[in-house]
């Protein structure tokens, strides 16, 4: 039997074990150790929304970068050292340049886009074509997004906010099916990432992708479809599990208001068909102050949707709901009474007062003493995106500059697939509720780590630290362990080098004793004198011969294997 080369081997190995990843009910190990109730008795921060005025050093810088981007790039740490905390947050919240649209990555010697789009040109303005090219474009769109996350040219929170909104207004690309719709939907999230929540809800309500995904386009006066109305209340704005709350008749009334919206596949816009609209008056419960939204004939029927959204946004609950979700996305999942009153309530009030602008809310949270409290650090379990995209960003894995999008997207596609193995493939949430790790009591983020995904996380690092993957490009994409070390000012000092790696890679810090044991076992090959590493590194820098390169690489790989296999590597 022939031996596959190492890359093919891994790719086969991974391909053979693909499946959806939420901890299955019979994951007995997960069930034994995950939260069975909200964690009790932990020392938690009592910090408020008062502006943080404490130390601004690497602990705070790395905390901020980890939570607002995917993984930490050392260059960002260095830059932020020269800024104040406020400058750093302001920059992260600044407007991001709109990325260039997704490209034709799929033309090959045997396949040509039927609408005439050439390789490396964008397809977003081209007509639909056929189902084959549509499927290729759909992957192109998701993979383009992954490329944006990894190679975003500016230091911005935007990519993480797009992920936040994608999880919030969760749509499955395979169900929406149309690549153009997914792209336009994505752009709504991107354009409004730090914008106005109410505007965003309005745009999403009329978004063709959402009309398709939640059957809005089938919602007719003769056969109302309540799907979108229910999720609009329950998942997108008001939430549930509090009293008093909206009632079932409110959902029915909202569904009637939303009848008549349709989309076109010619220019990918939505439109209102008054013939399909239920123009009767819609009465709401006491939760909404017994409000009536009066039916309007003809094209005015579309205005009822605005009135519905205006009515929803009279409720303080809508503000609390989205603020809690933001808190869970950026700080910690467990919101106790202290946090509810110190953070959620005031931020929700601010959101209402400022007319639903998201950016000021985030700014206040991210600049707060609550956010920078030591007790708010390191407790976030890295999502599959943090893990995979973060690895590419932290280790600064670059693709060959001369590559066209065909090869580049092959790499992104492999990462898309691997994030799926870790239970978090972008554009493929399990359902409209998004990923349970962001909403499901009492275990939340813990769901990312289970019997299937934990070994795969470590396998990903093994893969990337050893032979990498080629994903059909013919080039091994992998971590160059020396590349990151070279960015550091003192890679020849084994103690400082381990501190450097640990800061970038590990959530909660590890002890000096443990660091020393890694140093001795890996960097010093069980020698006792630090200068053996110092000399080996100096020799490599002076002359990167096979011998010198081999010597430092094997030792760095050994060290990085140990560090990235630590439980701490999954926290941020």
């Amino acid at each position, binding site marked *: 039997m022939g031996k596959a080369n190492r890359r093919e*081997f891994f790719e086969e190995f991974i391909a053979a074990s693909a499946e959806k990843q939420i901890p299955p009910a019979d994951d007995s*190990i997960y069930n034994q150790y995950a939260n069975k109730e909200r964690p009790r008795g932990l020392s938690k921060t009592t910090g408020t929304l008062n502006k943080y005025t404490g130390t601004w050093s690497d602990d705070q810088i790395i905390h901020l970068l980890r939570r607002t981007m995917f993984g930490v790039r050392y260059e960002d740490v260095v830059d932020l050292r020269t800024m104040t905390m406020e400058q750093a947050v302001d920059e992260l919240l600044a407007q991001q340049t709109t990325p260039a649209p997704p490209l034709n990555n799929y033309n090959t010697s045997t396949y040509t886009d039927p609408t005439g789009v050439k390789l490396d040109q964008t397809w977003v303005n081209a007509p639909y074509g056929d189902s084959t090219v549509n499927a290729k474009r759909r992957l192109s769109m998701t993979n383009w997004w992954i490329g944006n996350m990894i190679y975003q040219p500016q230091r911005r929170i935007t990519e993480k906010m797009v992920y936040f909104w994608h999880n919030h207004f969760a749509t499955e690309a395979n169900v929406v099916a149309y690549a153009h719709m997914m792209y336009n939907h994505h752009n709504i999230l991107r354009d409004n990432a730090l914008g106005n929540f109410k505007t965003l809800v309005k745009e999403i309500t009329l978004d063709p992708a959402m009309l398709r995904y939640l059957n809005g386009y089938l919602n007719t006066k003769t056969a109302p479809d309540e799907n979108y109305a229910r999720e609009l209340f329950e998942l997108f704005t008001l939430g549930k599990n509090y009293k008093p709350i909206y009632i079932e008749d409110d959902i029915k009334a909202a569904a009637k208001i939303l009848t008549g919206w349709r989309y076109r596949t010619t220019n990918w816009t939505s439109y209102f068909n008054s013939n399909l609209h239920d123009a009767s008056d819609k009465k709401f419960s006491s939760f909404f102050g017994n409000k009536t939204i009066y039916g309007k004939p003809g094209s005015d029927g579309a205005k009822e949707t605005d009135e519905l959204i205006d009515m929803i946004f009279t409720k303080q609950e809508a503000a609390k709901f989205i603020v809690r979700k933001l808190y869970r996305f950026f700080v910690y999942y467990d919101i106790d009474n202290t946090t509810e009153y110190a953070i959620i309530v005031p931020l929700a009030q601010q959101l209402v007062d400022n007319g639903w602008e998201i950016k000021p809310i985030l700014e206040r949270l991210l600049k707060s003493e609550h956010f920078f409290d030591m007790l708010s650090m390191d*407790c976030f379990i890295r999502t599959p995106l943090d893990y995979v995209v973060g690895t590419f960003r932290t280790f600064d894995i670059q693709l060959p500059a001369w590559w066209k999008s065909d090869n580049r997207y092959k790499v992104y596609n492999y990462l898309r697939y691997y994030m799926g193995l870790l239970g978090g493939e972008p554009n493929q949430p399990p359902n409209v509720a998004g990923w349970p790790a962001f909403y499901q009591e009492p275990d939340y983020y813990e769901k990312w780590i289970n019997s299937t995904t934990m070994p795969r996380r470590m396998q990903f690092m093994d893969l990337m630290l050893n032979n990498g993957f080629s994903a059909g490009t013919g080039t091994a994409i992998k971590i160059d362990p020396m590349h990151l070390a070279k960015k550091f000012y003192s890679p020849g000092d084994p103690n400082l080098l381990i501190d450097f790696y640990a800061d970038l890679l590990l959530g909660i810090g590890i002890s000096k004793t443990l660091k020393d044991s890694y140093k001795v076992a890996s960097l010093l090959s069980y020698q006792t004198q630090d200068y053996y590493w110092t000399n080996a590194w100096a020799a490599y820098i002076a002359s990167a011969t096979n011998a010198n390169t081999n010597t430092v690489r094997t030792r760095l790989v050994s060290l990085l294997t140990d560090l990235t296999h630590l439980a701490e590597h999954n926290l941020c």
Partner: protein
Amino acid sequence: MKRRDFLKVGQAATLAYMINGNPIHAYASNPLLELLAKQTAANGRVMVMIQLSGGNDGLNTVIPIDKYSALSNARGNILIPQSKVLSLANTTATGLHPAMAGVRDMYNNGLVNIVQGVGYPDPNFSHFRATDIWMSGSDSNQYINTGWIGRFLDEQYPNFPNGYPNPTMPDPLAIQIGSGVSSMLQGTNVNMGHAISSIDSFYNIVNGVVDPAPNTPAGHELTFIRYIKQQTETYTKAIQAAAQKATNQSSLWPTTANRLADQLKIVARLIAGGLKTPIYVVNLGGFDTHSQQTDNVDTTLGNHANLLGDISEAVNAFFDDCAILKTDDRVAAMTFSEFGRRIKANASGGTDHGTTAPVMVFGKEVNPGLIGSNPSIPANAAVGDNLALQHDYRTVYAAVLADWFQLDVATMDKILMKNYFIQPIFKKTNNVDETTTYGSDDMLGQNFPNPFSRSTTITFGSEGGMTTIQLFDVSGRLVKTVLDQPMEKGKHSVTINRNGLPAGTYFYKLTNGKNKSTKRLIAVD
């Protein structure tokens, strides 16, 4: 047939071994069954690799008593007084460091084989590079990304980790104790080792606990992840189960701190607990004794003495434990270090990086004694003088692969990337057994000298009549007929001239009527 092919018929092998309750040797005329019998016998064998990091001073470990005047000139400041050297049974020329009473006892009980002067041509004096050479099994100027044990395990367990664990191999292929990734275990696809990252982490696994974490949100999630990681690591359950089946029994385990003993305790327990893991890697660092190798006043004490004492106590207790736990038939261990040290001591009471050093192999199945001779020491050694190479380190690996793990020669050559002769470290050889049937044990003597480079002489007895002595290579191929004629009854001798015979291990077989006897000899350049 390679072992990987054999593994596929593993069930048949077990069955074959038990036909009519007879050992399979009864069917030895069938080559397949013969091979299966060998493989079955090799099953369960364990090699414990004891890495002595830093470069062990071989001259103060296995001491050439017959070179004392030259040694006094070269390293009087650290030399062990001759009267303190531990003497060994059957030799007056070689002794052991006084801290190694445990190893001395094992040696005298026939449990130790010492190969002298082990190294490789064009030696490297850098710790890192020399370590990498020993780990990979490469030449001095060759850069290999896999480890020699990794390649061995690749052959034995193809496609690992895909499809593992499985009923044939439910356990780790190799267990490394300590952090880092042992490059010795690096296979083509993955590192074949399962690391038990620390002594504490082993007992955590055994007790199903994880390290304590602070009572904070971060600590809460860390503890959760640690449990999931521990419990989902492929081999946690196998290790837990093995550890629960056996406990350390020997009263010889040191009660004072001994880093090697802490590791070997775990190894002994896991072997006795039934793990099928064939390879364990343990490590003792601190051998880089550039200064203060010995106590200033009493050279039998000090840093190096403490390290050798640790080895001696730990290994002695380990094999005692194995004997009590009844695993000693299938356990062997060997020490190795990236290099030996310089002949001449330096002014700091230490020794600098050198070349060759002895390798010690332990276990019931070793040929007791010494292979090779005491190193030659110049009467007035200069700073740059080094010990000459006697045995390539890969000849030791060859013995581990061919004789201990019973690999066929072609596979062994592939793993070692060249043909090396097989040091006669183990009693039982693989492709040709050293056996005697019918005749008395002494009817065929050991050739002398052995190893030989030009000619060697074999003494033998004949009952009279046709007497044949043939030379076979390790794969059993006839190389030369040394003698084939009627002989008088009585003692005789015959000389083999090298005449272009390649360096390597050979077997010479005496046939005289129904009497047959086979022994091994080694030709060296």
